[in-house]
């Protein structure tokens, strides 16, 4: 049986399936943005679903369900990245939506050059449009750290992309 279904079936709370189906696409997009690879994102999203299904019964609903899913996604991608060979390309140009492939490549290169914690905060703020509080909740870091990482990430990007800007 599909491990996701198996995990979901074992749950006493059927609201997991509803919640997951609502946020699955968002989680998938986040994983693509963090890994730069849609192929890896497919597998990783499956793994995130299994972990989320196991964690969901302990979720007390004090925050939004997607923060739980995002938290698991960020951790899973972090683990996945630590297991990757350093030579593996982060970029996957097949899925560029930009009209200018050169700029897109430059931006993604600059993005991939950022330290992982800065890139994660930037992706959550700019692409996922989470508030600082939500980012702090997802990453389990203080609000001040979110702001400092975000500021440093933007500063670094501005330096790297000064030509494009």
């Amino acid at each position: 049986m599909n491990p996701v279904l198996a995990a979901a079936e074992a749950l006493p709370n059927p609201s997991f399936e509803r919640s997951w189906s609502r946020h699955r696409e968002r989680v998938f997009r986040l994983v693509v943005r963090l890994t730069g690879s849609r192929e890896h994102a497919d597998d990783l999203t499956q793994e995130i679903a299994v972990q989320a299904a196991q964690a969901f019964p302990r979720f007390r609903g004090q925050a939004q369900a997607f923060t739980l899913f995002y938290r698991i996604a960020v951790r899973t991608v972090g683990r996945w990245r630590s297991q990757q060979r350093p030579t593996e390309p982060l970029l996957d140009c097949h899925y560029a939506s930009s009209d200018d492939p050169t700029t897109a490549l430059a931006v993604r290169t600059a993005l991939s050059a950022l330290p992982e914690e800065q890139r994660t905060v930037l992706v959550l703020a700019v692409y996922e449009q989470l508030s600082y509080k939500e980012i702090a909740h997802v990453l389990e870091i203080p609000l001040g750290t979110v702001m400092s990482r975000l500021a440093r990430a933007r500063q670094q990007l501005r330096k790297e992309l000064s030509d494009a800007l």
Partner: protein
Amino acid sequence: MPCKVSHERLMRLHDSELSYLQALTLRRHARRCPDCRKMLTELSATDTLLQRADYFPTEIKHQPLPLRPLGLVGGLAVATGAIVFLALPGGPLRPTSSFASVEEAMGKVKTIHWKESSGGSVVWDCWADLTRRRICKQMMQGNQILQKETLKPEGWLKVIFNSPKTYFWQPLWRKEARDDYLRDHIIFSKSDPGRIESREFLGEKFTRKYSAWKKIEDIGTAEMLVFEKDLEQKTKYGNYNAKIFFWIDAETRRIIRREERSLKNNDYVCVSNDFKYNETPPPGIFEIEEPKVGEQYVYFDFSKFQKNNQRIEDEQNRKRVVGEAIATCSHRATKAFLSLWDFEAIPPEKRAARKALAQSIVENQVPYKTWKSEKIMSAHPGPTYLRKSESDPFPPLPSPYEDTVDVNVQGWVTTARTSKPYLALSTFTLTKRSGQWKIQQLQCTTEPLPHW
């Protein structure tokens, strides 16, 4: 002279993290400050570049206020708007009016099916038919129904499925109580900020004060809204303070989850979730099955007991019956002991056996010799009835019983079999019929109680 506004503050402005007035002030400053304007432009340009290089098409993002000059008229309009925004209901200084949309959406619902739990293995399976204005709650343990409650137009009828079945009739607190329940728990027929209720139950007065609904901005998202309100209940025994939270689907404006959290006792939290709307309720779910012919049942009518002011005056009479029971038992006066009993609610075929049992209590089982440190505590159960025929009214009104009381007698006892006294507890269920108290039930501990 370099500008003193920090980059962090400008970034918060760019990311819409500042309050409305803070953002307004900073934007007006940025209009005149080239450093800040440059910084904001760079932040926007970086984000635009990032969005263009995204793997997915750009999503809709909240656009910040434009930086164009406001002018005097514009400035006055914004200032007036800000005052209105802050001061009127719906503004951040007042309860939000957006809850009205929840009331409206919930008002269109026909049926609701949800689960309610205060922790543990017991879960309430709840149904509401908002067209007929009926509610049913079933306390489940696995597939077994332990208790069922239905809200009728006049009040709650509850049944506990023990042996015998125990029925409770609890009239509405007041005329609008049915609406209160619907409004507080399921549907919100009207906004009612700062509502205060005064109620009376079993002669005890208490008040409930509800705050207005407040929207919790930092938890809610574009998909889900969260509202809270405070509940403060005052009785002469103590206060109960709680927070009530509602999670609302932003699209349908229907309830997704409800939580009531006690502020004093963090362990208590009542969660309602798994809300389903407009399902067809199972047939007969809003009815409670009446007792069958020949079946014994307990019926407790809160409205009757609420009006009974003679309970205290009768205390000496009740004590006298209990005293006589102990005395006749201790002296093995079987006939006198049996005369204290009411066997009316015993099915005729079982009546002889019950008399024999009472007789055996006197003659064999509990030959009490002495009672010391006697302590009497009263509780309020319902009388036991026997459904003799289909024509017997249910609810059993008018009741032949004027009152029913449980009397717990606790004391040091010596019996024929024990050389040392031990602590024992007996519970006498006494009923009053035609002004006379009789014993309907008697339960005694066969083992010594722990010494406390």
